[in-house]
C-alpha cells in the first residue's frame, strides 16, 4: 500500500477531509505529520523560507517530519481555490521550496490546482493525481465524488465542531460531530483570519479553546453565506483578488455590522502580505465609522508568540466585550 503524507499545515486546515477521503478511497494510506512544537526553528532547512510568514515556515518543518515516513508527499500547487480569485503568490512556490528542502528524499506530488480553469477543476485535478498513482478513470471518478461529499458534510458541520470539540479534534474525522446543543457561554465572538491561523495550534496557540474557556460562543466566516460576502466586498472601490482576503474583509464587514456579535478578533501572521494590507484597511474604515462600537482586536502571530501573551490579550478583550454588552442591555 502506498503511503501518502499530508503535511498538517496551510490549506490542510480547509481541504483535509477532501484530500484524505480521496486517497483513502483509492486505497492509499494517509499519514499526517505530528505537531512540530517549539524546537522547529533549530532545524536548518527551515532557512528556505526564512523571510516568509510562520505558516509557510511550518510547512517546511511538517514536510521534513514526514519525509522519512512516507513514499509520496502531497503538496499541491494551490493557485486558486475560487472561480475568479487567486491564492497568495507564496503558495505557488511551495512545492519547489519543499523539493529543495527535502532534497529528493520523497516524491513530491505537486499537481497545480487552479479552480479558475475548465468546467470541472476538481475533477481534472483528481484525475491527474489518480493517474499518477496508476488508477483508472472510473475508480478515480468514484473516489473524487465520494471525497466531495465528505468535504461538503465537513463544511456543514464545521461551526458545530469548532464550538463543540477541542482544537486537536476539529480535523480528526474519526471524532463524530457533537449535537447542536447551544454551547455554554454568554458572549458571541467572531474569529476571522486564514484557516491556518485559526486552527493550527503552532500558529494560533489555540485561540478558539482559550476563547471558549472564557465563556465565548465562536462565530466563524464559514458560517456566513458566500454570496453575501461577495456582495459586501464588491462594493469596495477595487476588486480584492485574493479569495482569502475577500473572505476576511467580507466577514469583518458583516460581523462588525451585526448586533448579535459582541466582538471581532482578527488573527494575522506577521509578514503576511495580504493581512498587512487588509488589516490597515479594516483599521481605518472602522476608525471612520464612529457608531460602530463593537470591539475589534488584531492579534499578530509569529514564532515568538506565547500562550500567556495571547491569553492576556484575549482576557482583556473579553472583558471589554462584556462591558460593551452590559451597556447595550441597559
Amino acid at each position, binding site marked *: 500500500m502506498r503511503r501518502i503524507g499530508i503535511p498538517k499545515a496551510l490549506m490542510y486546515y480547509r481541504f483535509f477531509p477532501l484530500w484524505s477521503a480521496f486517497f483513502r478511497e483509492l486505497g492509499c494510506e494517509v499519514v499526517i505529520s505530528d505537531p512540530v512544537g517549539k524546537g522547529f526553528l533549530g532545524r536548518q532547512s527551515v*532557512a*528556505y*523560507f*526564512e*523571510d*516568509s510568514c510562520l505558516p509557510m515556515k511550518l510547512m517546511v518543518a511538517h514536510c521534513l517530519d514526514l519525509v522519512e515516513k512516507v513514499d509520496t508527499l502531497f503538496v499541491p*500547487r494551490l*493557485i486558486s481555490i475560487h472561480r475568479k480569485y*487567486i491564492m*497568495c*503568490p*507564496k503558495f*505557488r*512556490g511551495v*512545492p*519547489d*521550496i519543499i523539493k*529543495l528542502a527535502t532534497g529528493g528524499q520523497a516524491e513530491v506530488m*505537486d499537481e*497545480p490546482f487552479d479552480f479558475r480553469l475548465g468546467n470541472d477543476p476538481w475533477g481534472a485535478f483528481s484525475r491527474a493525481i489518480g493517474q499518477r498513482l496508476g488508477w483508472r478513470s472510473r475508480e478515480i471518478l468514484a473516489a473524487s465524488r465520494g471525497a466531495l461529499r465528505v468535504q461538503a458534510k465537513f463544511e456543514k458541520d464545521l461551526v458545530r465542531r469548532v464550538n463543540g470539540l477541542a482544537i486537536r479534534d476539529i480535523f480528526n474525522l474519526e471524532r463524530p460531530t457533537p449535537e447542536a446543543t447551544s454551547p455554554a457561554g454568554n458572549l458571541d465572538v467572531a474569529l476571522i483570519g486564514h484557516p491556518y491561523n485559526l486552527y493550527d495550534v503552532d500558529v494560533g496557540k489555540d485561540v478558539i479553546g482559550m476563547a471558549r474557556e472564557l465563556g465565548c460562543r465562536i462565530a466563524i466566516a464559514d458560517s456566513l453565506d458566500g454570496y453575501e460576502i461577495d456582495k459586501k466586498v464588491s462594493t*469596495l*472601490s*477595487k*476588486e*480584492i*483578488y*485574493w479569495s482569502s482576503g475577500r473572505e476576511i474583509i467580507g466577514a469583518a464587514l458583516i460581523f462588525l455590522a451585526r448586533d448579535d456579535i459582541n466582538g471581532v478578533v482578527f488573527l494575522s501572521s*506577521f*509578514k*503576511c*502580505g*495580504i*493581512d*498587512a*494590507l*487588509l*488589516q*490597515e*484597511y479594516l483599521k*481605518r*474604515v472602522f*476608525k*471612520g465609522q464612529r457608531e460602530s462600537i463593537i470591539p475589534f482586536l488584531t492579534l499578530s502571530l509569529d514564532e515568538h508568540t506565547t500562550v500567556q501573551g495571547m491569553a492576556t490579550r484575549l482576557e482583556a478583550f473579553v472583558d471589554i466585550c462584556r462591558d460593551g454588552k452590559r451597556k447595550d442591555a441597559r
Partner: protein
Amino acid sequence: MKVTFPHLGTMHIFCKAIAETAGIDYIVPPKTSKRTLTLGVKHSNECICLPFKIILGNFIEALELGADTIVMVGSGPPCRLGLYDLVQKVILEDLGLHYRWLTIPPRLDWPALLKNRDETRELKKELSLKNITTFPYALWIGWKKMMACERLEKLALRVRAREVITGRTEKMLQKALAGLDKAKTGRAIERAIIEGEKILGSVDQDRGRQPLRVAIVGELYTVMDPQINRGVERKLGEMGVEVTRTSWFSSHILRSLGVGRENRRERLRYYRASLQYLGYDVGAECNVSIGETILRAKDGYDGVVHLMPFACMPETTASGILDRVSRDLGFPVLTLILDEQENEGRITTLLEAFVDMLMWRRQRFH
C-alpha cells in the same frame, strides 16, 4: 486641478513632460527624503512593503503642497501593488487630506473602466478640449523623454565603471538629465540626447580597465529607484563594476501593453530558465529574478545583486530559491532586503565586501 504622481527613478522627468505638453497643472512631489519615509511608515502597517510606504509619503507631501489629483499606476494580481490604491485612499481620507484619485488600469477592460467611472466623470469637467486633443502628442513626448532618459542612464552605467575621478559620472549624468528636462519638442529632445551623450563622453575614462560585471535583479521598484535602494547601482559603479539591469520603464510598459517582440522574447527566455527551479509562474518578477540569475551565470557575469523590499510576497520565494541556485552554480548572489530600518552604511559595507569577493574570485579563476 493640480496633478501629482509618485516618484520612481527618473519618472518625474517624463510625467512632468506629459502634463506640461498637455497643458495640465502639476506638482512634482518633493524628492524622496527621510521625511517622506517617516510619514509613510507612520501611517501604515509595519509589514506592508517599502514601495507602499514611500508612495504614500510622496502623496502626503504632494497634497500638502496643494496638489489635488493623484495619478497612480494600477496593476493586476497577484502582487499587492494592485491594491495600493484601495488602502491608500482610506489612509489619506483618515488623515483628513482631500484628493481625487485616478488609477491607470493595467488592462483596459470593462470592470476597470467601471470602477474608475466616477473619477473620470469629475475629471472630464475640468479638462478643456485643448487638453484632451493634445494628450496623444503629450504621451508621445513623454515616451520619447523616457526612452532618452533610459539611453543616458544606460550609457552612464558603462561610463561609471571606468571613470577616473570617482563621482564624476553621476554629476555629468545629472547635468545631462537636467538638459533633457528642459527640452520641450521632439527635436529638442533629440538635441538633448546628443548633448547629453557628449557630456557623459567628456568624463575621463580608463579605457583599459576591465570592470567586473554584475546584474541587478529583483522587485522593479527597488531596482529602479535610487532613493529606495540607497543608490546600489551608483555605489557598485563607483567601485568599478559595470552594472546591468533588465528592469526599465520601457520594458515594463511594453510588457503590460503586450507589445515589443524582443522584450517579450527575453522575458520568456528568463522564464524558461527559471522553470528548473520553480515549476510555475509565481508572478511579478519572481521567475525573472531566478531565470536571469541562472542565465547571467552562464553568460559569464561575475555576480548578481538581488533587491527586494521586506515581506514582498513573490520575491520571498525567489530569495529562498536563489540561495540554492547560487550554491548549485557556484555563482555569487547578494540578496538585499530593504526596509525603513535600512541604513546606507550597511549597504555600502555589504557591497564593498561583495565586490572584494568578486575580485578574489576573478584573480583565482582567470
